């Protein structure tokens, strides 16, 4: 690796941390209802919206009303998105005259964007009109991200409040997420992206003469505005099929790093927001540290494997040194590695390279990032929720081992919190194993595979890990636009999303009702190194125990076979 590679690997987390700390503080003030420098601009807008929607911003909700409002809101989102896809042919802003989207693809896409997954079984430029992209997909990019942030804030309130029956107001939380956090950031990113050459136009596709005399149609569209929120909201749904590998989505090395920064920014800021809202910043730092340790460990292995290249291709004399297969030259190996790592530790799922072409052990890292539930920073909001669920599990074991009813941040962890955090941690894992098992043992599932042997297994696991983890990135190589995959992945996305959000709200409600236990010498401090180490250990062990067999058969076996010179 060159010096600049090393710099990129180190600078990205460093710069992000420096940006995330003030953003976390800012978000804490936004959701605590405090004044900030955007209030003068947005407060009138906020007031107007509440009046328009008939929302009383002072009204507090129990976890049940919060959940009902959220489900209602998301159901409307799915219905609207479905409807839009069916009638896009007769609506304006459709220069390519694209017709109604096939029902299973439309359903999959609606679920996909509302659940912040942005799994795309279609290719954008051939399926979706500009209007659908803007009014449907981009709007949901904002709203699904806002939903995630709102729920994580509700959970934080659960820890803060004492003997309280309420956890905030969903409508207020979601409005503030959009107005104060997502819109300003998306605006900044759009401008920066446009400056680098990301296209933003309503005109139709260009037909151009190529150098060898042939014709080529170049797809265009209002890309930059969607591109920014794609990253900021860890959505990941590309305007084009090639996603961030497409030069109109991600034209330069600078945009490449901008996109990486964008997609990690809010997930990294949330632990700091937690610390600020708890008025216990060390707690936020501890949670952040656990995430960062896992992030750096995975990234280290990943970069090492990719920069060492593929021994078989080297032997054949077609490549040397590094693994460039499936990567854009302008992004380079390290630019692709950091992107791929970032997009799988979060639930983003944008891609700037073909994950399918990564080395087997790199594939293992990507799979691990997703299968542990995307808690290394994770998706906006839900990543923090996932990590807090692991923290609950960790403190349950730790509490028992020091002879006290387990507690976390002053809240006793009892039956309800245990059950719900287990649901959050394990249900995506169980779902992905079951669906992969079904896919791999049925003809309809197997027919979509492009590779045999262990790599084929990795493709299927990756698809369902991506769907149930609401990531949305694809391993490529798998033809997912079939009725079977459209329906199974839609199911995985729905279950994966709501088996995190609803239990999280239940936990928030249960915690808010409890009193806060004052710390004593017998309280295990959850800000120290031991806690961080144990939390990291629990995450790795839970992941390893659940996926050891399938990882052995997939990426590990593939790696060993490759080392022995065998291919499929």
């Amino acid at each position, binding site marked *: 690796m060159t010096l600049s590679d090393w710099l990129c690997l180190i600078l990205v987390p460093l710069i992000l941390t420096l940006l995330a700390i003030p953003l976390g503080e800012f978000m804490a003030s936004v959701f605590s209802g405090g004044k900030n420098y955007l209030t003068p601009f947005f407060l009138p807008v906020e007031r107007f919206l509440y009046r328009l929607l008939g929302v009383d911003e002072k009204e507090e909700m129990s976890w049940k009303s919060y959940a009902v409002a959220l489900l209602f809101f998301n159901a409307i989102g799915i219905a609207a998105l479905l409807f839009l896809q069916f009638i896009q042919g007769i609506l304006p802003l459709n220069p390519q005259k694209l017709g109604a989207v096939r029902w299973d693809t439309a359903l999959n896409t609606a679920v996909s964007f509302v659940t912040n997954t942005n799994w795309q079984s279609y290719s954008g430029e051939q399926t979706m009109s500009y209007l659908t992209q803007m009014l449907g997909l981009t709007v949901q990019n904002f709203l699904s991200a806002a939903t995630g942030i709102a729920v994580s804030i509700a959970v934080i309130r659960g820890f803060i409040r004492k003997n309280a029956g309420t956890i905030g107001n969903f409508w207020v939380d979601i409005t503030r997420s959009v107005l104060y956090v997502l819109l300003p950031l998306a605006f900044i990113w759009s401008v920066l992206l446009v400056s680098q050459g990301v296209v933003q136009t309503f005109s139709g596709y260009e037909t151009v003469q190529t150098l060898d005399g042939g014709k080529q149609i170049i797809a265009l569209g209002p890309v930059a505005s969607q591109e920014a929120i794609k990253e900021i909201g860890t959505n990941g749904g590309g305007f084009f099929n090639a996603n961030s590998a497409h030069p109109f989505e991600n034209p330069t090395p600078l945009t490449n790093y901008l996109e990486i920064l964008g997609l990690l920014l809010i997930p990294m800021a949330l632990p700091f927001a937690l610390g600020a809202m708890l008025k216990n910043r060390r707690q936020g730092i501890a949670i952040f540290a656990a995430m960062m340790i896992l992030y750096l460990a995975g990234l280290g292995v990943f970069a090492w494997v990719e920069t060492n290249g593929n021994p078989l291709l080297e032997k054949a004399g077609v490549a040397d040194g590094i693994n460039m297969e499936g990567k854009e030259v302008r992004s380079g190996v390290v630019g692709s590695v950091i992107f791929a790592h970032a997009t799988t530790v979060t639930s983003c799922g944008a891609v700037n390279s073909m994950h399918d072409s990564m080395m087997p052990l790199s594939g293992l890292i990507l799979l691990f990032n997703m299968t542990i539930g995307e808690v290394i920073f994770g998706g906006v909001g839900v990543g923090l929720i996932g990590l807090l669920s692991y923290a609950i599990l960790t403190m349950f074991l730790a*509490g028992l081992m020091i002879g*006290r009813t387990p507690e976390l941040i002053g809240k006793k962890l009892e039956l309800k919190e245990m059950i719900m955090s*287990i649901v959050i941690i394990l249900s995506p894992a169980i779902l992905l194993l079951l669906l992969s098992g079904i896919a791999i043992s049925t003809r309809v599932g197997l027919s979509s595979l492009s590779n045999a042997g262990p790599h084929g297994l990795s493709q299927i696991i990756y698809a369902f890990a991506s769907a149930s983890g609401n990531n949305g990135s694809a391993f490529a190589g798998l033809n997912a636009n079939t009725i079977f995959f459209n329906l199974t992945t839609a199911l995985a996305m729905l279950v994966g999303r709501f088996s995190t959000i609803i239990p999280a709200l239940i936990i928030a409600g249960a915690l808010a009702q409890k009193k806060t236990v004052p710390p004593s010498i017998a309280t295990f401090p959850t800000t120290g190194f031991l806690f961080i180490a144990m939390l990291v250990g629990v995450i790795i062990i839970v992941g390893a125990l659940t996926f050891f067999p399938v990882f052995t058969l997939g990426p590990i076996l593939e790696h060993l076979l490759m080392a022995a010179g065998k291919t499929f």
Partner: protein
Amino acid sequence: MKAKKINIWQAKFVIPAIRDSVKKLNPLVMIANPVMFIVEVVTVITSLIAIADIIGGRNVIFDLQIALWLWFTIIFANFSEALAEGQGRAQAESLKKNRSEAKAKRLRADGTQEVISALKLQKEDVICLEDGDTIPGDGDVIEGTALIDESAITGESAPVIRESGGDRSGVTGGTRVLSGKIKVRITANPGESFLDQMINMVEGAKRQKTPNEKALHILLIALTIVFIVVVVTFKYFAGYMKVDVNLSVLIALLVCLMPTTIGGLLPAIGIAGMDRLLQYNFIAMSGRAVEASGDVDVVLMDKTGTITLGNRMATEFIPVNREDEKELINAALLSSLADDTPEGRSIVILAKERLGVHGREIRAPQGSTFIPFSAEARMSGIDWSGRKIRKGSLEAIREFVAAQGTPITDPVLKITNDISTEGSTPLLVAQNEKILGAIRLKDVLKEGISGRIAKLRQMGIKSVMITGDNPLTAATIAAEAGVDDFVAEAKPATKLDLIRRYQGMGHLVAMIGDGTNDAPALAQADVAVAMNAGTQAAREAANIVDLDSNPTKLLDIVEIGKQILITRGALTTFSVANDVAKYFAIVPAIFIAQYPELRVLDIMSLGSAASAIMSAVVFNALIIPLLIPLALRGVHYKPASAAKLLRRNLLVYGLGGLVLPFIGIKLIDVIVNALKII
């Protein structure tokens, strides 16, 4: 504290336990423990596979041995539970032994007596007892006073006084009236006494899971479900990779991964905790109370009886004039010779010591009249040959001397003031019109109490002393005993308010009480320990009863509570950590034939695929009986900071749990291959 420990490793306990562990195989019983129930289900399936092998003429050796070891796994788990139950039963029996089933004299409504079997006594029955009678059931003295021998229950040979009205009215079935006539109102129906409740809790049927236990159960069940999914889908993933995995191998993998170690030992750990309570002469009303005691972070203690001995003792004579010292001591001695109060006796002892007349019997002189303490005069003394010696409080003596025309002098005031400032109580001694000096009466700490309070602090528990004394006295005792806080001039309602206040701040509060006016506070406290000698109201409001009536034993309850949780946590961690080694034993074994490259994962380099799977199963079964002593004894607990405790337990049970099975499985594999049994 003395503990009556029963050695469980005797034939009379082990053999019935073995019998019980087979009886417990009944699926209807097993279902109470879902983890082990699933093990039983798959074990039956494996046994059927073995039988099918025999019928089909296939090689049965592998399947049969797997089935056998799976059965052992369940039986070992049942054995641990049965053994813990046996221990508890034996413990309870030893408490119950002396409970006679003799007759009881029941008072009829018309005032006459009838003799009925003690077993027929109902709640609210009133019985009459006199010298030599054994008390047939738990109850409250409603009339009279008696000397009672409680040695059958507490092991304490000194008899105790039980009387109606006060805070010492409770009597326990099985104890004996030495002298006195009392009427007792029975407070429990047959089979409902404290002891019966405790025995029920030890024996399966009425045992309720504590909230912590339930949460742990959920975790274990969730792990089980995940592993079932892992193993079932594993078959299909392997099938896709062209490897057919036998059902019996899948079951072996499943059972090895499932948390059978903790799942199997979980009931035993809870019961053994109860057993330990019994050893320390506690009766717990629920397992919940015991575990909550591990969480307690504030303890409310009465000063009198808990921190100090009940009575004040004389520690110093302070004369007004130096030269009067001898006279003061003499006067104090004379006035106290007939004074039978503990204070009086302590004055006699101190005076004899100062006069150097050890051992010699001194009697009140002929012709003297003793003036006992009376509530009106608030002093006691002696009249003898024209001398009127009185001792009493400042106010009483002030009146006494004023009546003879002398006012209190400044030096006297200074002495009493000094004594009060130091937290003691001054007792003035006057002879006729002259005040000779003062006796310092001091609260005396119970032996070892400050050490115990220090230990509480190490556990993170704050101690709060409650007393009716003035703040000065209270502060002195508090400082001497080393309590963290105190409340002086407390009224009966103070305790309840204090508990509510601490609970409002999020604390879990333990309270020790014996009086009827303690009952509301006991009912409010999270852990309420009542003295067995206390009133019925106190005992009913409490959730733990101390048969020894020794308030300092709270420490033992806290330790037992913590030990139960620690043992569960440690074995859960151990059990889960074990899975890593089992994966490394079983997964490569399944695939090596097809994919020899996977041999790198076989880091134990086990003999063969079959022996690898076998060894993991055997290890999984054998670890249960090996851990039974630990489960019954509990993980050692030493007060330390939470982080230190966790570090130690993580190291022993986490790291140990990770490493040990690698060694164990390798060893078993060597033996299995040496014996060529597979």
